[in-house]
């Protein structure tokens, strides 16, 4: 990771209550779903149907996670937090794929690679809270979320393992046969 989300886990230490943690966990999943949907739209607009399907599949998963969190916290009042007051610093919530990391020519390996990075960031985020949480209930929640994210990381890795071996030609395949300024 090269963006400043490397500081996100450290910032997670600013979360002090269970409702705050749940608000963050829910926002992580909602943001991730929204981002995957947006990326799927981008890929559809740019006629990369395979990756659009993949992103949409991930969006469905994130939606499911968000639904589960909402169910489990039924009745609990969450704090209203402005987008810029979440404890992941200046960048984004950890599980959102960076908009600027995608390309319309990207292949499955590249897309899964981005998903893996996103899941790993979410895992690191919750692991850090497990480390620093003083409230045992908050630690228990964070452990649960971390375990889920670890499972996601494992699943994505498994998907990557199913791909044909990397032939090293991805960059060449990503070359744009319809460049924007075709020289005459």
């Amino acid at each position: 990771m090269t963006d400043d989300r490397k500081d996100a886990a450290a910032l997670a230490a600013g979360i002090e209550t269970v409702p705050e943690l749940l608000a963050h966990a829910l926002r992580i999943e909602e943001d991730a779903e929204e981002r995957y949907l947006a990326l799927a739209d981008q890929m559809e607009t740019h006629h990369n149907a395979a990756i659009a399907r993949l992103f949409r599949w991930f969006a469905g998963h994130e939606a499911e996670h968000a639904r589960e969190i909402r169910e489990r916290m039924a009745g609990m009042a969450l704090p209203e937090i402005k987008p810029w007051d979440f404890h992941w610093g200046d960048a984004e919530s950890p599980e959102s794929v960076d908009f600027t990391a995608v390309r319309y020519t990207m292949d499955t390996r590249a897309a899964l690679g981005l998903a893996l990075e996103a899941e790993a960031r979410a895992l690191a985020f919750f692991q850090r809270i497990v480390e620093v949480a003083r409230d045992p209930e908050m630690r228990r929640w964070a452990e649960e979320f971390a375990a889920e994210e670890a499972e996601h990381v494992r699943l994505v890795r498994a998907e990557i393992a199913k791909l044909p071996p990397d032939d090293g030609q991805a960059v060449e395949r990503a070359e744009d046969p319809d460049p924007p300024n075709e020289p005459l």
Partner: protein
Amino acid sequence: MNEHPAPKRKASDYKSEVKPVWCPGCGDYHVLLSLTRMLAASGTPPEQVAVISGIGCSSRIPAYTNCYGFHGVHGRSLALAAGLKVARPDLTVLVMSGDGDGFSIGGNHFLHACRRNIDITYVVMDNQVYGMTKGQPSPTTDPEWDSALAPGGTGIRPFQPLVIALASGANFVARAFSGQPNETARIIHEAVMHPGFSFVQVMSPCVTFRPEQAAWKDAVHPAPVEATDDPARAARRIMTDDGFNIGVLYRGDRPVFDPHSGAEPVPLSALERSFAL
């Protein structure tokens, strides 16, 4: 802009069904996200917001929102927005532009919008290139940048929008980076809430024509000092910084332009009397 307490709105309530035509990887997706998050946080109903733009990649943004929008001609968005805001002071008016639209063809309007200090917010998504016309140098492009239109570079000095804004009288000046959408949302929110003309330069990388701008996300850093209310100090800081200081750089308190008399309107016959012999 007034803070609207209820009902609660989500960022997605401010997005339209229209799918952006921007390239995957474009920084402008982040700016759209910042805009919708900012509006959701403010609670302003979408129908009370007008998003005004000109021409270029960035200027496609109004139709991607669920607000009222105007996608006008190249370079004239600030003028159109000025007329709208003066006629309809109840609206929250945002102008979304790019470096070509805002600083080149629209440069004169930029100066006078700063001077006039109408209560609008001007967000320029600066990628230092004309993207829609496929990669020509813009006013903020480095002089050495090689392109078909300017082989070997333009050789001319880049425009300094933040300093120009300060010199021209903008009441709020900030720099943001699209890759930090929450911070950008915060800055735009503050810009909207600040009275008068607020200018936010959002560095927004062009994945297609300026792929080297991917390095911006490692170069940006929070401005090391608090915003000042002294334009000269702010200008000096901006002129001597590395170009990657992010944050609010200047907050002023100039009076906001308001041409309304506030008096009870007279009937037309009162005007006719001056012609009678």
